[in-house]
């Protein structure tokens, strides 16, 4: 295994791009932790199993989010399946504008919010740094000048709502589903997690990120540093 062959996923560039606490350190602790994970994944084919309810919803409603985005934009979008890479990074953008993914003029990344609260909080905050770097990565891979984060609010699938209700039952320490307090709390869960009454255009917002060639160059430089670190500290010693 050669560190120079390792390609970093766009979705995890945010980890390696975090700044070290002191100027003496080249890579941050977050970055090094991530490099260890990458090393384990490459060498032993084991991935940190990040499987939580937020990711679960994202996976389950991905196509529905694309449908919502398409309906609000009045344009048919199809999920991109092409995996891209260059000599440093790899990734699979969700959607694009343009004739082909390789000549895309704009990249669109769909983010499915967990609930109405996370959706609106995201609307009134700057986008996470992780997403900024992810989209710079996609722009680097495609040549696109603009990338858009499209946040979508989609009804939570019934199985996940059921899980929430089960957790609630446990928390409330009740034995029967007929408990009036529990029934009232379940109705609240249903309201908090499904949105048929909210107009489509209020359930999607976009944040535009402009291509920054200096930042893309910084990604490549950081990848080189990460590879050096992995070669020296992980491949030779672990």
């Amino acid at each position: 295994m050669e560190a120079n062959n390792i390609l970093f996923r766009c979705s995890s560039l945010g980890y390696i791009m975090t700044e070290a606490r002191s100027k003496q350190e080249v890579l941050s602790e977050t970055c090094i932790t991530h490099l260890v994970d990458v090393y384990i994944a490459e060498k032993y084919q084991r991935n940190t199993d990040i499987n939580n309810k937020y990711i679960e919803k994202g996976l389950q409603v991905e196509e529905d989010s694309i449908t919502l985005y398409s309906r609000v934009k009045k344009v048919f979008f199809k999920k991109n399946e092409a995996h891209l890479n260059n000599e440093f990074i790899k990734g699979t953008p969700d959607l694009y504008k343009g004739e082909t993914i390789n000549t895309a003029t704009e990249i669109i990344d769909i983010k499915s919010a967990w609930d109405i609260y996370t959706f609106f909080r995201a609307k009134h905050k700057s986008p996470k740094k992780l997403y900024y770097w992810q989209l710079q990565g996609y722009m680097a891979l495609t040549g696109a000048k603009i990338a858009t984060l499209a946040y979508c609010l989609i009804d939570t699938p019934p199985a996940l709502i059921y899980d929430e209700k089960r957790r609630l039952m446990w928390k409330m320490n009740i034995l029967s589903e007929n408990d009036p307090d529990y029934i009232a709390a379940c109705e609240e869960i249903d309201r908090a997690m499904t949105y048929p009454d909210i107009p489509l255009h209020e359930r999607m917002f976009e944040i535009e990120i402009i291509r920054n060639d200096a930042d893309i160059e910084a990604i490549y430089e950081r990848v080189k540093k990460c590879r050096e670190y992995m070669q020296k500290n992980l491949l030779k010693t672990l």
Partner: protein
Amino acid sequence: MSTELEKPKQTLKDYVFSEETKRKFESLLKDNPATFLTSIVQIANSNDMLKKAEPSSIINAALTAATLNLPLNNNLGFAWIVPYQDKAQFQIGWKGFVQLAQRSGLFKSIYATPIYEGQITNNNPLEGYEFDFSVKPTGAPIGYAARFKLLNGFQSTMYMSTEDVERHAKKYSQTYKKGFGVWKDNFDAMAKKTVIKLLISQYAPLSINMQTALLADQAIIKQDEEGTFQYLDNEPEKVDKELERFALLIQDASTLDDIEALKKHVPDVLLDDLLMKEQKLRNGGK
């Protein structure tokens, strides 16, 4: 006082060695049905969860294996009986599909293999994927490919990236989502099976046995309605989301410009709907 005694619950042994079961297996298996029946009991006894599974579901899974003439030996990897909830599920391995393809007499070759970084040389889905296997495997597989060639010259290849396979597993296997089960334990074999199964189901000529195999795989085979299958661990997405998306866009269209924008990508099945909507808009919405 009741004079009727409660009927004792039938054990797996009762089921396996009943006259009816013996007769069924004798009609299916020419060679040594008694050994096959004994192996069913051994398989069930080797797994605590299977021991507790409904005996009839174990027998029906075994009958399907016998119908397809696939041995139920874990070491061979052709087919398995696996527990799921309180029932037994019939599962075919990728080797089982290869075996059935060979037996149909229509296939010249059929393979499934992991693909590693640098091995894909052409990824044009219309012309078929091309691979360079002289590139040495490094790291984890980036995907899985299956290819068959028929004796009449027709050939087809399917490639799925590892991410696509994982997505497939998460979509169709409840146990994988929860972090256990056959996908978690044998990802490589399940990935090979997935590409080969999808390739066969989409592009290969399907013999009766192959059709049975495709339907029975991962199903609980019902006893009372012979030939019907119940899928507990996989809930295939029934709606074609892209088609649904397009239909909604046609429904939402409120101007002729909206219609024009949709014309470029309209799928054949929705062309009439699009033209009808266009006509309606031209007539002022009537």
